[in-house]
C-alpha cells in the first residue's frame, strides 16, 4: 500500500470542506471493507483518505411511514432493526446477505451503495422499494433515484466532492417483500445471485396489483426486471405464475461468469422471493 494522509472529520460540514479541498486526490472511507482491499491490491492509490466513521450525524435510522437511513449506519444495525420484519423483512435479509457478523459490524449502507459492486445486496432490495439517495457537497444538495445512481460496475453518479447523506424510501409502498440469495460457494461469500421482490396484491382476489423485482450479481449494475414485473401485474397469483415470472426474469439478466448456472438460479430465486413476499402480505 502506498503512503497516504489520513483524516478523520467529526462533522458533515468538516467532511464536505475536506472533500472540496482535496477533490480527486481523496478517497472516502466508511467501513473500509471494500476500499482497504482495493488499496492493498494497489488498484487505487489515494493521496488522502478521509474516514467518515466519526461523523455521528450520518449514522441514523428513522422508520415510520417512510424510511430514512444514514449512510454510515452499519449493516448489522439494519439487520437487527425491529421494523425490518414481516413485510419489510427484505431489508434485514439483504443486510444479512453481506459477509458475516464482523463484516456487517463494519460495512455501512452508504459504502455498500457507493462502492457500486455488481454483487452488492442492499441496492436491489432498496430498488424494489423505489429508494432514493440524497447527495450533498459544499453549497449543494440533490436527490437521485437509486436506479439512476448506479451507472456501471463500481461506478456511480456521485461527484468527487459529494457524499451520500441519506438513503430514503418515502413513502413506504403498500405491499410486502423478500430478498433471497445464494453465495458463490461458502456460507460467507460474495453473492452469486440475489433477488429482491416487492408485491402489492389483493389478498382476497389473490391478484397482483403491482410487482417490483430487482437482481444482484447478474448484470453490470443491480437491475430491475421490468418484463417480469409487467407480466405479474394483474395476474392471479399462483406457484405457476411465480415460476413463469422467474423464467422471464432470467431473460432480463446478462451474467458473465457461470452464466448458465446463474441464469438457472435467477428463475429459482425469483420464484422463491415472490412466494416469500406474497406470504408476507399483510391481511
Amino acid at each position: 500500500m502506498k503512503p497516504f494522509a489520513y483524516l478523520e472529520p467529526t462533522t458533515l460540514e468538516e467532511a464536505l470542506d475536506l472533500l472540496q479541498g482535496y477533490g480527486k486526490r481523496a478517497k472516502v472511507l466508511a467501513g473500509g471493507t471494500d476500499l482497504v482491499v482495493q488499496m492493498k491490491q494497489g488498484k487505487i492509490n489515494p493521496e488522502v483518505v478521509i474516514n467518515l466513521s466519526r461523523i455521528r450525524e450520518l449514522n441514523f435510522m428513522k422508520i415510520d411511514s417512510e424510511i430514512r437511513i444514514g449512510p454510515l449506519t452499519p449493516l448489522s444495525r439494519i439487520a437487527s432493526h425491529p421494523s425490518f420484519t414481516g413485510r419489510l423483512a427484505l431489508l434485514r435479509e439483504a443486510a444479512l446477505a453481506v459477509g458475516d457478523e464482523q463484516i456487517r459490524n463494519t460495512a455501512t449502507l452508504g459504502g455498500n451503495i457507493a462502492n457500486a459492486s455488481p454483487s452488492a445486496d442492499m441496492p436491489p432490495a432498496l430498488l424494489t422499494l423505489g429508494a432514493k439517495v440524497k447527495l450533498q457537497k459544499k453549497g449543494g444538495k440533490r436527490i437521485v433515484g437509486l436506479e439512476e445512481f448506479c451507472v456501471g460496475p463500481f461506478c456511480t453518479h456521485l461527484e468527487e466532492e459529494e457524499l451520500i447523506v441519506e438513503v430514503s424510501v418515502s413513502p413506504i409502498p403498500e405491499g410486502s417483500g423478500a430478498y433471497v440469495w445464494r453465495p458463490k460457494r461458502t456460507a460467507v461469500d460474495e453473492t452469486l445471485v440475489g433477488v429482491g421482490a416487492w408485491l402489492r396484491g389483493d389478498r382476497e382476489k389473490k391478484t397482483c396489483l403491482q410487482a417490483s423485482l430487482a437482481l444482484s450479481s447478474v448484470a453490470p449494475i443491480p437491475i430491475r426486471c421490468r418484463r417480469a414485473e409487467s407480466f405479474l401485474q394483474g395476474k392471479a397469483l399462483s406457484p405457476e405464475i411465480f415460476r413463469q415470472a422467474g423464467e422471464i426474469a432470467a431473460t432480463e439478466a446478462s451474467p458473465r461468469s457461470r452464466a448458465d448456472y446463474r441464469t438457472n438460479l435467477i428463475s429459482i430465486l425469483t420464484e422463491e422471493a415472490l412466494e416469500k413476499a406474497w406470504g408476507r402480505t399483510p391481511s
Partner: protein
Amino acid sequence: MISQERKMESIGTSPARLDAREKVTGRTTYGADLRLPGMLYAKVLRSPYPHARILRVDGSKVRNLPGVAAVVTGEDYPGTLGVTIHDQNFLARGKVRFVGDAVAAVAAVDLDTAEEALSLIRVDYEPLSALLDPGEAMKNREVLIHEDLAQYSVAAGIFPFAGTNICNHFKLRRGNVDRGFRESDLVLEDTYTSHMVQHAHLEPHASVAQVDPSGRILVWSNTQTPYFNRKALAKGLNLPLTQVRVMCTALGGGFGGKSYLRAEPVCVALALKTKGRPVKLVYTREEEFGVAPVRHPTMIRCKTGMRKDGTWVAQETELIFDTGAYADIGPRVCRNAGFSAAGPYKVPSVRIDSYCVYTNKPVGGAFRGFGIPQMTWAIESHLDVMAEKLGLDPVELRLKNAVEEGSLSVTGQVLHSVGLKETIRQAAEKISWGKGLGTNRGKGIACMHKSTVTPSSSSAFVKLNEDASVTILCSAVEMGQGSSTILAQIAAEELSIPVEKIAVVRPDTDVTPYDMASVSSRSTFFAGNAVRRAAADAREQLLQIAAEILEANPRDLVIDSGKVMVRGVPERAILISDLPLGEAFYVGVKGSRGMGRPVLGRGSFTVEDATPLDRETGQGKNPSAFWMYATQAAEVEVEPRSGRVKILRISSAHDVGKSIHPVSIEGQIQGALVMGVGTALFEEMELENGRVKNPTLAEYKLPSALDAPEMIPIIVEEPHSQGPFGAKGLGEPALAPTAAAIANAIYAAVGVRVKDLPITPEKILEGLRRKEGK
C-alpha cells in the same frame, strides 16, 4: 525401565492445553510476529512465466537505492536443495519452472523500499513451452522440465526416469491380477480426479535469518521440520551442522505446508550478505497460494474385480500425481498413496502403478494425509459404484473386505492394532445407517487407512528441576495439534506428577535433541515413546537419589503427591523438592550423605524392524510402524433445482490405539473434517497458463463455522503394542474419507455420481439433467 500397568492418572484425561491461555488471549509470538534489532525486510522477485530460460538478471540499479542492504540471485548460490531429489537451488539458476519461481531477492530497511528495489531489477527471459497437464508431461520427451534429472542426487526408494518428466514410479505387484479379473463376476473401471488445494494456514510462512559474530547461521522459522532444515541448509552451503542453528517459532497452523525449506533459503542467502543484520521474509497470501506447496492434483484409474457376494478378488490402480515444478516430497507422496491404494481391505491380487510427474505449476508438497485423501477419494467412490452394481449395501461390502488384526496387507505386512471394522460399525450406527430418509436426502460412507513415515526416530530429554517441576526437551513441533500437552501427559503419567508441573521447550537444534519431523501423524507415537523413555529414565534416577536418603531399595519407592515414599510406609517419605536435584548437599544436610546430582532423563525411539519396499513388487514386511484407520458416514440433502448440497451431519470414527487427550482428539477430528468438507465442496486453486487466478482468501473459499455440518466424533481404541500406552497417530485421517463419504451420500440422495473434485452445484445439476435426459 517403563513402569508396569496401573491405573492411569493423566492419560485419557483432557487437561487444559499448555498453550491454550497464551493463544486464546492473543499473546503468542508467531513466526510472522518476530522482530529483531536492526532487522531488514526481504522481498522476492518471482518468475512471471511458467517455463523460461533466464538470459540475464541485472540488479545494478538496485545497489544505488538508499536503504537496500543486499541483492541476491541464483548465480550467487550454486548449492543444491531438495527433499527427495536435489532439483532446486536457493534461487532459480538458468531456468524458471513455474510462475513464482524465485529469481532474485532483496533485503532493505523496510518493505516499501524492498518492493521498490524489486521494480528496478531487470530480468530477460526466453519463454519455453510449458507443460501444464500431467498426462501430457508424462508422455512428452521433447520438453523436459529438468533436463538434468539423471544427474540429480536422489533419496533411497525413489525412482525417476531420466529423459522424461517422471520423477518417481512406484510399483506394487501381488498375486495374479489378470486371473483375478477373469475369476470376478463384476469388473469395473473408472477414473477419478482431484484438484489443487492449499493448506491455507492462517499464519503465512515466515523466516528470520542472521549470521552471528562467530559466523554461525541462525534461522528462526515456523517450520515443522527443524532438523531436516538444519541439515539441508548446512549441506546446501557446505557447512558442518554446528554452523547452522534452527529455532522454531510458534506455528499458526502447518498441515504439512510448513515442512521442509520454504522461506528459509532466500532469507539465509540474503543474511549471508548483510554483515550480521537479521533478514526477515514473510510470504504474502499471494505467495502462499502461488509459491508455497499445494496438494497434488491427481488422476486415479481404478479397476476392481469382485465376486457376486462382494468378495474382492483383484485390483488394478494407476495414480498420477501432478507434482509441479520441483519434486519436493512429491515422490514420497506418490509412493505412500501407491502402497495404500487398494484401501484398508483384504485384496489377494493387486497391481499398482503410481507416477509422480513434473509440470510447470505450483509445487505439490506434504499436505495432511500425504496422498491418502486423493487415493481414498478414488477407491471409496469406486467401491460404492461396485456395491450398487452388485446390489450390496456399502457398509456390508466394506465390512466384508475390511482388514483386521493379523490380516496380511498388500505389501505382505502382518497388520496389528486394526480397529477398522469397529469404526465402520460405529460411524454407520451414529447416523442411523439404513433407516428412513427424506426426499433428496442420502447417506454415504467411506473408510481410510494411512501409514506413518517409517523408519524414523525421535529423542527427548526430561529434566527434573530442583523444585520438582519438569522440563521436556524434544523437537516435536507444537503447531496447534496439541503435541506438547500430549507429551507432557505422557511424562506426567510416567513420573506420577501433575501435568501443570511440566513445561515443553520449543524446538531448537542447539538445545532440543533429534526428531525426524512433525509430520505423518507421528509425534504421539515416536516423540511420545521417546519422552516416555526419558521420563522413565528420570524417574529411575530420582528414585535412586531418594533411595539413598530414605535408606530403602529404589524398587520399594513410589511417587505420590510430590513426594517419594516407601510403599506402604507413608512416614518414610521425602518431598521431591527437598531432594538434592541440583545443588549438592554437605554430608548430614537433610539426612543426605553428602550427595546430590541433577536428574536428566534420556530417551529415544525408533522401530527396529522397518523394511524397504521391493522396487519391482512393492513388497515389504514393515513399511509402516502403525496404521491409522477411520470411517466417516455423511448424511446430505441436495436441492435438486440448484444442485446445492447441504451436509446434515457426518460421523467420524477413528481407531487411535489409545486416547491420551480425548478433547484434543475430538478437536483434531472436527478440524480435519471441516478441512475435508472444504476440499470436497469449496476449495479450488484455479490456474490459467500456470498462474493462480484466485490467490486470496476472498476468492479461494475456505469453509467457515457456518459451513460446518453437525459432527459426531467417535473414538475407537485398538491399542498398539509399541505405542505409548497403546496410542497411535491421528492428525491426518479425518480429512481423507470426507469427500468420498459426501459424494456417496449425494449419489444415494439424487443418483448423481461426481468423479472430479470439487463437487460443485454445477456438476450435480449437470448430472441431474443428464439423468433426466436418459
